[in-house]
């Protein structure tokens, strides 16, 4: 929680939200006034000591920050002997990094004088975090969730309802995250006067990619200080999973000005990128506009958005945040696909070797670390962003590994 966490950086986009050719605002005019208002409030808030105090107090006293940096030596033995440290976002209140962003945006919602919050969710992590912040701050909360996801993440649906949120299953399109975002945007345009759209990832129209990134920069700021203290040096690699890309952009920014540190994003490779069932947007996607920004997207030759496929509901998204597109182009970050099978292997491995059950999303980063560790060898040092815990993924694990009780 450094005072400069939200301060403008040399990596900020231009005033209309462009990171190079990416980002901007590809969205209906009806919503421009709302994003302009949000941008104006955020520009004031990000340098306002009172806002920062309140935000940091919530991160510390409510979310439980700073989160730990835990070395994982027995897991690392499978990673070519490189040292592996885990940034424990799974230990935050609500069980993932998502709480950082929702606390920041819920505070902004209050500042804007709005009483109603809507959000989309894929795995349910962002929905749960949003419902939590709304309960804490007395805001009305509506969560849009693809019907497919409500089925595979039933536990999170129950959590959100318990927290007082209304959960609306979205039955249009592919009935997953992208359709939940479409539906939230339709709600927003009809209710924009009293409603804030609390977007859950570092994508969407300006200022969301900057604002969400900044609220998550705490991850990288903490991790950098912790690894210097515990290992005495900077890591060779920082690895994080990338769906929309919020946890990755948050930890990457802590190291972005350290040229010796490679930033590696791990994308959902599904059944493999040589099949049509994956969500590796940066690896095989092409430029396009989706949900308000220009970025890489998964689309067919007509520009129709195609369905992503991943065992992880939280990475199952055919777009990606525009700053990641920019980091890919400039070469500052690199992106690799991880298949469902590789992720599930890492999911089981961390559980057994370290007693930590990761979210399947985060297991993609762990699988990447296994490969990167072997590439680096025993002298290597990797920080993995363990973006969430895996309790929510037990149904998937039961099916994948056959863990059910035998009758």
């Amino acid at each position: 929680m450094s005072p400069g966490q939200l301060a403008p950086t040399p990596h900020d986009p231009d005033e209309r939200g462009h990171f190079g050719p990416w980002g901007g605002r590809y969205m209906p005019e009806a919503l421009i006034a709302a994003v302009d208002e949000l941008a104006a409030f955020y520009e004031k808030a990000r340098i306002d000591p009172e806002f920062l105090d309140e935000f940091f107090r919530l991160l510390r006293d409510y979310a439980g920050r700073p989160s730990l940096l835990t070395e994982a030596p027995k897991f690392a033995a499978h990673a070519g002997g490189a040292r592996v440290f885990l940034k424990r976002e799974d230990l935050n209140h609500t069980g993932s990094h998502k709480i950082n962003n929702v606390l920041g945006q819920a505070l902004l919602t209050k500042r804007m004088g709005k009483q109603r919050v809507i959000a989309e969710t894929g795995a349910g992590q962002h929905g749960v975090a949003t419902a939590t912040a709304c309960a804490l701050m007395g805001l009305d909360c509506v969560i849009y969730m693809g019907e497919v996801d409500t089925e595979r993440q039933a536990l999170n649906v129950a959590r959100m309802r318990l927290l007082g949120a209304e959960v609306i299953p979205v039955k249009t399109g592919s009935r997953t995250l992208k359709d939940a975002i479409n539906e939230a945007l339709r709600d927003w345009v009809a209710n924009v006067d009293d409603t804030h759209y609390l977007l859950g990832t570092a994508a969407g129209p300006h200022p969301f990619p900057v604002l969400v990134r900044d609220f998550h920069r705490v991850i990288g700021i903490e991790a950098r200080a912790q690894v210097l203290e515990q290992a005495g040096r900077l890591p060779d690699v920082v690895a994080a999973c990338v769906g929309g890309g919020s946890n990755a952009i948050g930890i990457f920014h802590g190291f972005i000005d350290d040229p010796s540190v490679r930033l590696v994003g791990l994308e959902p490779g599904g059944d493999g990128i040589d099949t049509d069932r994956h969500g590796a947007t940066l690896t095989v996607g092409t430029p396009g506009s989706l949900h308000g920004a220009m970025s890489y997207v998964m689309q067919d030759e007509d520009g129709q958005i195609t369905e992503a496929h991943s065992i992880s509901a939280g990475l199952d998204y055919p777009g990606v945040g525009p700053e990641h597109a920019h980091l890919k182009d400039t070469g500052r970050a690199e992106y690799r696909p991880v298949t469902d099978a590789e992720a599930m292997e890492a999911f089981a491995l961390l559980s057994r070797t370290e007693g930590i059950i990761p979210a399947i999303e985060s297991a993609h980063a762990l699988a990447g670390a296994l490969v990167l560790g072997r590439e680096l060898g025993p002298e290597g040092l990797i920080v993995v962003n363990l973006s969430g815990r895996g309790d929510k993924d037990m149904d998937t694990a039961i099916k994948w590994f056959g863990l059910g009780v035998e009758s």
Partner: protein
Amino acid sequence: MSRLAGVFDACRSESRAALIGYLPAGYPTLEGSKDVLRTMVSSGCDLVEVGLPYSDPVMDGPTIQKASEQALRGGFRVRDLFGVVESVAALGGRAVVMTYWNPVLKYGVDAFARDLAAAGGLGLITPDLVPDEAAEWLEASEAHDLDRIFLVAPSSTEERIDLTARSSRGFLYATSVMGVTGARDVVSSAAPALVERVREHTDLPVAVGLGVRSGAQAAELAAFADGVIVGSAFVTAVRDDTVAALTAELAEGVRQVPSRA
């Protein structure tokens, strides 16, 4: 010079508003959409908007979403759009295309403009492209002499109405309510105020859409707007096989109340 000025001039000379009807290409089928558009033109639409079915129509309510999904499931391809536009032009009708931006980006902005113009299309309505991001389209539309119809909303500031008006050619599309497409029972009270605000910035014709489904509503809008846009109600009429009757009712509606001279 605008390609659509003639339409609005003619309507003004008759002291009425223009009737603008929307239908997604490929709905209910590719050939079926050409038939429906022919009926719309022959029964009284002064201009038709041919919609390009898209996978993620964030500005559309359930009626148009379902129609777009049906068209895509039926195998609709972007290249089929130009044949539909051509079928309208061949009948002497006037067509613009309404499309989300990503399919145009993917097709190539200049190539799309070229092929639309070649098919006899007169312009493009872009619900999720604001002038701020439209440099390539401004250039392509000039090169291929197409009208550019951007949208304004009740939430638009004066500054943005001004920017949008300066960037537009043909007419301005005023969304009468804050919301997605779909027929509504009452015409929004925000519409007259929005049109009035727009007129302080431009002499371009202003057409009003979102929520219109009856002749009475059309008449209400025609009292202050230069064009009345009807979408979802036509999609529903296709299902009910009442397109000719709906068009006639709306055409009568836009003639009931003299529009501003």
